[in-house]
């Protein structure tokens, strides 16, 4: 199976001489095509930093990140922007939709930025809208949609240009339980039917239970990894809870 993401021993420091913070302390993992991976950890564990580094928004202090055979740690700013545009798709916690554009236009924006042929844009947008079941809301403005619909529009925007890797940062953070479920089921569908590779960051167990594989982060290190395998979602949920419970107890029990 093709390896989409390969993170090799990355470290990230913040601050200056007087005040140094180590946000990521030697993390190594990889993700294959078609996997649905989740990164879990408490606040301050470095999971958002990790996502930012993988998504090229931030730069690592040392180590390598290879996405689809391209070592992004070696790319310059312009090429990085280009790479981000073409190969990656983002779903943010606060949707980040432009309130002056309709849903259709928000999704289309991802394509126009890449200078896709205007004639093809209509078809592509409609296709991805179908995948995420948001065809009826396409002509509406964000303020006219529910939170769940907005997040799915954001997801559509992330996907429309067929990126190698989809990155989601707390996608259900601002949603109620019903909307969360709908979004996660959509993501699941994308993963199963269209073989999309998804990397999700969350602190919420329910969200995490939809993934195939979870990496647990604490204090900038991966301290555990579990696979769903053949378990049902409920069983996987329980297994995750167990690991999380351990986080509250003695650290030496975990490592």
């Amino acid at each position, binding site marked *: 199976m093709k390896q989409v993401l390969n993170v090799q021993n990355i470290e990230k420091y913040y601050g200056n001489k007087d005040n140094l913070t180590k946000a990521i302390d030697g993390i190594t993992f990889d993700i294959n095509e078609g996997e649905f991976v989740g990164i879990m950890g408490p606040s301050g564990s470095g999971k958002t930093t990790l996502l930012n580094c993988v998504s090229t928004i931030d730069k690592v202090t040392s180590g390598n990140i290879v996405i689809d055979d391209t070592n992004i740690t070696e790319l310059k700013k312009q090429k990085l*922007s280009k790479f981000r545009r073409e190969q990656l798709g983002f779903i943010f916690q606060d949707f980040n939709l432009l*309130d002056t554009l309709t849903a259709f236009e928000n999704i289309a*924006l991802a394509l126009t930025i890449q200078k896709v042929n*205007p004639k093809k*844009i209509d078809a592509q947008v409609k296709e991805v809208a179908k995948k995420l079941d948001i065809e009826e809301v396409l002509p509406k403005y964000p303020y006219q949609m529910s939170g769940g619909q907005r997040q799915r529009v954001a997801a559509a925007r992330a996907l429309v240009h067929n990126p190698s890797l989809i990155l989601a940062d707390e996608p259900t953070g601002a949603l109620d339980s019903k909307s969360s479920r709908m979004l996660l089921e959509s993501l699941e569908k994308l993963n199963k039917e269209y073989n999309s590779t998804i990397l999700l960051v969350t602190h919420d167990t329910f969200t995490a239970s939809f993934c195939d594989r979870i990496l647990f982060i604490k204090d900038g290190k991966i301290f555990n990894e579990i696979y769903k395998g053949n378990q049902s979602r409920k069983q996987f949920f329980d297994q995750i809870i167990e690991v999380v419970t351990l986080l509250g107890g003695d650290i030496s029990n975990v490592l």
Partner: protein
Amino acid sequence: MYFKIALQNVRKSFQDYFIYFLTLAFSVCLFFAFNSFTEQQAVIEMTTSQSEIMKLLTEIMGYMSVFVAVVLCFLIMYANSFLVRRRKKEFGTYMLLGMEKSKMARILLYETFIIGLLSLVVGIVFGIALSQVLTIATASLFEVQLNYRFVFSFEALILTILCFGLVFFLAMLLNIVILSKFKLIDLLYADRKNEEIHIKYVGIYVLIFIVSLVCLGVSYYHAWTDPFNVLGNKFIFVVSFGCIGTLLFFLSLAGFMLRFVSSSKKLYYKGLNMFVLKEVNASIKSNFISMSFVCILLLLSIGALCTGLSLNATINKSLKQSTPYDVSVEYRQYREDTPIEVIELQLPDSVKDDASILRVQKKVAIGIPTAEYNNVFEHVVNHYANREIGMTEQSNYEELSFIHESDFNDVLTDQGYKPIEIKKNELVPYTTSVQLRDPISKDIANKRTLNVQGYTFSLKEIDLPEMTLASSPLIDNSFICVVDDEIEFDDPTFIYHAININAKDETKHDAIREALENEITEQFSNKGYTFSYFASTRQDIYDGNKGTSVIVTYVGIYLGIVFMLSSVTLLALQQLTKANDNKKRYLILNKIGADDVMMNRALFKQLCIYFFIPLALALVHSFVGIHFVDAIIMTTGRSSILEGSAIACAILLLIYGCYFVVTYVGAKKIIHSK
């Protein structure tokens, strides 16, 4: 301690304040310079009449300054409120920490004071520089010698400080009012934008747009084809149609533009165009009133500048023509209840000795029955009827002026032209007004005869040069009839005499004029209201005209620049506020993959459209407006104002361009800041 906070705030956000500060400094500079005219008199060698003009100018500037101060006041208060609103989050933090509103007001007070003081000082320094320039300009406008010395007007300084002090005081009051209205929750969550309602029926905008174009079209048509009527009673009609048209134009522009561009997929789906268009749409929609206002201000500004800059050149051209003699003394006697006792002025010997040419010119006005007049001068009557200017009440008699052939020929030969010959039964109508030439030609072609006091005249056409019959400060827009010397009329309604003199010695002009004036006051001392006179040397007329020209030029430039500054600052501030609100959006664009170059280009397009649309419309308005002013000025025989318009446009583009660049740089900085 609060002062320290204020000082730090100003230093930190100096770049944000820059446009505000720049406008303030510039306003102070202009204000100070244009109010220092009194001092200029000391430096420039002026004649008495010129000094009179300067006094008048200073007075007019005083009144203008009040008006300008009011405009600037509004501008500064608007700018102030914009800046305060931008710092909502900061004030929210102060409030959260428990600071009372009065203390925050105090910080604001100090800040306004610091900025005010700074801009006042800088403005005055530049103002002093500018007033030196103005002194030199005045000298050149009056065409006199300049003994250059440093000019500084203490009065202007006091006036400026007082004025702007008052304005800042008002601005601080306004700030306090704004602050008192702030609610803590609004301040902290100022970033959460309220969703705007978008009107769905875009089709309506197309309709409104068409209506606006119709309105403007009607307005233009009338101003272009019928300027004199517009000056009269159609004025309000044209102006209001123009204003309504402009308002509707901006109201519908957003929707119309959007509709138009979104229908072309190739353009709409290119890069960040969708985003830019929607942003511009939102901007224009929420600001259409101020944009119309800006457009009209720009029109006024261009008009003022054009008129100011071009009148000088225009006046110069016609001066030579309107002063055929070195000195002319004119006096008129009017008929009251009894026929006029004609007085022939006794000319003193000194005058006769000093004159190389001495002419006595006589004109009479005879009452002609209206029916007869209207019949013979049908087209002239129609011409005035259409214009509706200077229409007196309908009476039984119309006045017609006559001059003898020899008096007329005197002027012709003195100017180097060939004299004319008229038979006893012929009459040559002569006018210097360009507008009347055509109607008069038509009347002559009608070949009707005029019956006056037993005489019968047929109208004769002779090709005559353009000239005035005496050096007069008045402009005569009517026509006069040249008749044979033997024709004598009874009981005229008024009699006009002109003593036209060319002096042997240039320096004697004033002496001759004074001598004649003394004679007149002596001989006519008991005539009261049935008599009036003018005594002018060529220099007097030059000075008078120049005076008008100087005043109009300065007032035009002053008002023009102030209006321009106000309008462009308004636009700049609005866009900077928008940029601040847009920071979030540009961040999103960055996250979804748009690089810096793309975003800068989008910002540039956005600003371009917003800045240059009101300018474009204002230029179209001005085109019609200038043509209108030109047509009016033409009546006084003066030429077109093309040159002045060109300079005005150049200044406009320069100032506009500068503000645009500063706004772009500022906005770019805002949206790229983390």
